[in-house]
């Protein structure tokens, strides 16, 4: 007689902010097997390229996801610009960079909050999200949207930020740093948090690479792989180092994300200093013909927008390979052998975003 338990986990589950389902096979509370299914959020939006002209499609691309909405829009635009070989104005590149980093901070804070929630640390969740509102306020003030920014377009950006506002943003980030430190301190130092995270869901260095992990997930396993280093947008002009940890456990992933926020603050401050004056967009005519894999670093890792144009206003194919999709295989690997209580932590530790994984 087997003493196994087979239970459904998700799609509706309070610790999973998004629908993903796992069939968990447990022995007592040990996870013997976890088989995932996605598809609860699949909309099929890639096919909308056949109905929307490519400049309009930016707004669809943005809504692949509401968390790193901006980066999706931007990467899509970069893809089109890549095919059409457009050199967009420098200021637009800088603005894109700034907004990208704001997205990253907002996303990481959001994630830290959810992660705390998964550990049953409610007040930490509340505090992370309270801090996140500062970032959202700045995003809203500069783009007009809290989560869906809608400020990117093919050939540049749609809104400028005044230099006073830029300075204000930089100093705002400065003053936020203190509280951010306190927050991060809890994640990295508190013994109850460490008790839950240390050694939970270890992804070895080799597994991380061969199973195609990206973003903080691969960086936490000791690879210094950060797509921003390719130097798209203004990243080529700015100096920063990818945050790397080596343990490969949930704690390392948390650590990487926590520290990345400070890198982001630093990047924004550099960008604010260096941003050149000039136009923010350029006129785009014609239609893309050709194909290109646009890559960029989302909060969750490398995202790839594959765009294939056929010379008409309607693209032949747009495909997004989102970081979550790449991280699913590692996730399944590290879930095996954990405890039921760790399932939410491990699932969240790769920061899954089903929204864009399924499109």
């Amino acid at each position, binding site marked *: 007689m087997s003493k196994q338990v087979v239970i459904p986990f998700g799609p509706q589950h309070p610790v999973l902010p998004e629908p993903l389902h796992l069939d968990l096979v447990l022995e007592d509370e040990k996870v013997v097997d976890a088989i995932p299914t996605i598809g609860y959020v699949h909309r099929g939006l890639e096919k909308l390229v056949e109905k*929307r002209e490519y400049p*309009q*499609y930016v*707004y*669809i691309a943005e*809504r692949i996801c509401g968390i790193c909405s901006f980066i999706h829009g931007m990467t899509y635009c970069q893809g089109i610009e890549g095919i059409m070989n457009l050199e967009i104005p420098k200021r637009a590149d800088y603005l894109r960079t700034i907004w990208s980093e704001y997205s990253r901070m907002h996303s990481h804070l959001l994630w830290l909050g959810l992660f705390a929630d998964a550990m049953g*640390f409610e*007040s*930490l969740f509340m*505090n992370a999200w*309270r801090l996140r509102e500062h970032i959202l*306020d700045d995003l*809203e*003030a*500069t*783009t*007009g*949207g*809290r989560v*869906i920014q*809608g400020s990117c377009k093919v050939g540049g950006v*749609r*809104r400028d930020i005044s230099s006073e506002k830029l300075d204000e943003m930089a100093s705002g980030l400065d003053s936020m740093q203190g509280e951010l430190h*306190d*927050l991060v*301190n*809890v994640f990295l*130092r*508190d*013994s*109850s*948090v460490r008790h839950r995270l240390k050694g939970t869901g270890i992804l070895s260095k080799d597994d991380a690479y061969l199973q195609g992990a990206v973003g903080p997930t691969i960086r936490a396993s000791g690879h210094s792989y950060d797509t921003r280093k390719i130097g798209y947008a203004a990243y080529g002009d700015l100096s920063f180092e990818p945050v790397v940890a080596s343990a490969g456990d949930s704690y390392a992933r948390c650590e990487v994300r926590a520290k990345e926020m400070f890198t982001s603050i630093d990047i924004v401050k550099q960008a604010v200093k260096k941003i050149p004056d000039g136009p923010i967009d350029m006129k785009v005519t014609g239609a893309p013909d050709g194909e290109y894999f646009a890559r960029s670093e989302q909060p969750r890792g490398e995202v790839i927008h594959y765009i294939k144009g056929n010379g008409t206003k309607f693209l032949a194919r747009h495909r997004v390979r989102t970081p979550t999709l790449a991280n699913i295989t590692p996730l399944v690997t590290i879930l095996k052998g954990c405890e039921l209580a760790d399932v939410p932590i491990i699932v969240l530790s790769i920061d899954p975003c089903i929204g864009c994984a399924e499109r």
Partner: protein
Amino acid sequence: MGLFSMTKMVFRSVSRKPATLMYPVRPAKSAAAFRGRILIEPLKCIACRKCEKSCPTQAITVDVKVRTWQIDRLRCIICNCCVEDCPTNCLSTENIYTNPMTVREGIEIYTVPPKPERKKETVDNSKTEE
């Protein structure tokens, strides 16, 4: 190592006033740039259908014959494209949002001025306006 590292934040929270904005007792915070909803000045509209074409969600329907400009609030994603594309600048984005509704009636219809008799006048008109 730290037992109860959260202490500092907890005591800070207790000693400060709560961060809560107290909506709806006090009005919502929202930035001036916030895209709440699309506003039209129907009188300025020339029913050129440019907005209709640029709208990624087909929220706008312009009936050139009956002279109406119609928007479906439950479709509009407030992307601002129509505002950007309108030749007469009759569209704008307010930072007030559409209220929730209990029946699915997001459609608002505005009557726009009839088509001017002669083409030329229209052009003149718009020029003078500018």
